[in-house]
């Protein structure tokens, strides 16, 4: 018996702690509980809830041998990925998808202000450029223009990387501040992968045309002893220090490349463009305000739905209903926590799936309680009736839920996007609800039926 009480208290504790973790807006922070930083973890919201754009491109592989399709598609993905990273989008998605006729590229940008600009940028050819260091005076100037939070952020980062304390004035030394030069991929004649004779590490050797060679010579002359940064798609790839003036128009890009990365970079550079042309064939954009309204409304609906279910259960099953409600609460908290921890990308459909699952989660309890009523009619002892109700309702609960799980699995495997989110949420819901309805409710009911409450059989069910 003591064991049961400990379990009950444990489950209640999990419900409370999980609730603080799972409920959006973080109640713990609001009522000034001293919660650690990790405690706050936002839901991962889908494009339809936070606003954003979903782009589908068809890769035109007609000019490429079938054997090289996969490689080209991967090259394409990497180029686009680099570009997409420039938009400052949190966790952008860039995926290739194989179809019967070729390859497609999926790009998802969440919470983006200007999808039109993004679409334009994505279609561009890769951009190689050399940049030279700014003078210290220029760096200081820029530092003064930065907002203090950003400087602090930078200091934190630098300290983390170097392990040293950094003063505000010294931040400039760590800031990679470069200014563009005239030398760009426009002057590139070829790019190929070579290997260092000593370390066997791959690097990319570039060859400029005559005009580029001259620009490069001037640049190296001017920046002797300083670093020269190589940017691709506005991202610094490496920043070697210039040892001496280089004429002849040959440069190297070294960095922490794997052979594959180096190959791909060289290939993209010498192609001077995306490895294959792409065409936008589908686009879905949701504005941030629409998403916000959707969240508010569906959260409202969820709360109302939850309360209605609880009300119903208590009205029709009295004490048993109260315990079922507690276990439904446990269920809700557990599911929401799982969504945060796994994490599941929540879409509008996912929320609908969750709300629906609140209703379905008590299905098993309804089955058990109806059974309990019958068992009690047989004049069994209360204890035995409870045990029988749970064990005899099990086959129906199992069979019923398996069909739902089958549909969820098929929905998840065959579909994508909206439907997939719905299926995942509903599927997790069904699994967890079996646990909460059969194990947790039983725990509550068994434990409390051993108290004085157990003597009042009439209170337990209608």
């Amino acid at each position, binding site marked *: 018996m003591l064991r049961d009480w400990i379990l009950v208290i444990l489950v209640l504790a999990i419900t409370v702690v999980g609730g603080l973790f799972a409920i959006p807006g973080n109640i713990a922070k609001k009522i000034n509980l001293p919660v650690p930083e990790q405690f706050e973890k936002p839901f991962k919201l889908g494009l339809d809830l936070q606003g954003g754009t979903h782009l589908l491109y068809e890769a035109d592989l007609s000019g490429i041998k079938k054997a090289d399709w996969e490689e080209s598609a991967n090259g394409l993905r990497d180029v686009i990925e680099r570009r997409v990273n420039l938009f400052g989008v949190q966790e952008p998605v860039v995926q290739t998808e194989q179809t019967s006729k070729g390859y497609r590229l999926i790009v998802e940008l969440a919470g983006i202000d200007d999808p039109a600009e993004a679409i334009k940028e994505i279609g561009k050819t890769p951009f190689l450029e050399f940049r030279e260091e700014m003078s210290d005076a220029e760096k200081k100037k820029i530092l003064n223009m930065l907002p203090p939070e950003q400087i602090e952020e930078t200091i934190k980062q630098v300290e983390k990387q170097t392990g040293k304390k950094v003063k505000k004035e010294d931040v400039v030394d760590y800031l990679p501040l470069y200014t563009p030069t005239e030398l760009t991929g426009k002057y590139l004649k070829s790019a190929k992968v070579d290997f260092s004779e000593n370390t066997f590490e791959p690097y990319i050797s570039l060859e400029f045309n005559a005009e580029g060679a001259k620009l490069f010579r001037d640049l190296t002359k001017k920046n002797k002893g300083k670093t020269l940064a190589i940017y691709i798609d506005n991202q610094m790839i490496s920043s070697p220090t210039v040892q001496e003036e280089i004429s002849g128009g040959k440069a190297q890009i070294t960095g922490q490349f794997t052979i594959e990365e180096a190959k791909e970079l060289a290939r993209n550079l010498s192609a001077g463009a995306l490895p294959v042309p792409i065409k936008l064939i589908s686009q879905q954009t949701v504005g941030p*305000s629409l998403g916000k309204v959707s969240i508010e409304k569906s959260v409202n609906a969820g709360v109302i739905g939850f309360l209605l279910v609880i009300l119903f259960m208590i009205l029709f099953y009295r004490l048993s209903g109260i315990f079922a409600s507690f276990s439904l609460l446990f269920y809700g908290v557990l599911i929401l926590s799982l969504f945060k921890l796994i994490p599941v990308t929540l879409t509008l459909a996912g929320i609908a799936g969750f709300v629906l699952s609140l209703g379905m989660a008590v299905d098993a309890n*309804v089955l058990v309680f*109806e059974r309990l009523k019958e068992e009690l009619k047989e004049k069994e002892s209360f204890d035995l009736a409870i045990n029988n109700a749970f064990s005899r309702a099990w086959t129906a609960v199992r069979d019923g839920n398996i*069909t739902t799980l089958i549909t969820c699995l098929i929905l998840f495997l065959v579909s994508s996007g909206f439907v997939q989110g719905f299926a995942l949420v509903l599927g997790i819901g069904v699994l967890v609800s079996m646990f909460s309805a059969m194990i947790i409710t039983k725990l509550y009911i068994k434990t409390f039926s051993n108290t004085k409450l157990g003597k009042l059989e009439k209170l337990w069910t209608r």
Partner: protein
Amino acid sequence: MNIVKYSKFYFIFSGLLILTSVIFLFAWGFKLGVDFTGGSLLELKFIQKEPKISELRKEINSVLGTDFTLQESGEKGIILRAKNITEEEHQEIIDTLGGKDEVIEERFEMVGSVVGKELRRSTMIALILALFFITIYVASAFRKVSKPIPSWQYAIAALIALFHDILITCGAFALFGKFLGIEVNIPFVAALLTILGYSINDTIVIFDRLREHIVREDETFGNIVNISIKETFARSLFTSITTLLPLFAILFFGGETLFPFVLALIIGIFFGTYSSIFIAPPVLYSWIRLKEKRSS
């Protein structure tokens, strides 16, 4: 409670509903959404002025020609549909209507016709797969009960109930499409599949009780069916209510986007509950009667 006695009445009622649904489906079909047909949808909200549809029509006309439809949505909102708006035209329309200072873009969807076609195919595959596996599951769940009817007949009876629910839901949406302009899109398919699972779930609980009684008792089959329905009646009703309650909450408070999806679920689950009591067990019963008559 004598359900089987009035079997004919339920069959006629459901038969009429199914017939009407099939007629609706053949006459009107679905109003397919952009995801299936390919095409574009642009939803805009004006920040300041109330939009005048006739004026907007002229402005959009200058970009797209005449091949588009325009309707109001809520206050200050419009929805524009057209066969295929390219990204350039999309930007041009927004500029024409006053640019980002005048309008907020709530939603833009552009689906290539190839993508739409593929989606139609993959949804068909999903539906067929789901039906297939559910049939197998039901047949195997009842494999141990073969008296007085073989287990596959349980599966067939459950499937008949299932088609009943799906057809009526589809018929309702053909009707809604025709008169309310409600479109059938991917979420609708998700709803259908969920109904599929739910409907079977509901029927199985009753059949589960049936199989319990068949093994134990020496009643006539008709009585066993009646007893089983009676004993599971409250639970069938209550589980449906607890499922419908949150769905109604979404229907009334959940916003427009989810409305058709939830509506489909509500209709399907309602009829799923009905058919699990009034169609599936009577079908099983009538089947036995038919066999008995033939053998005598």
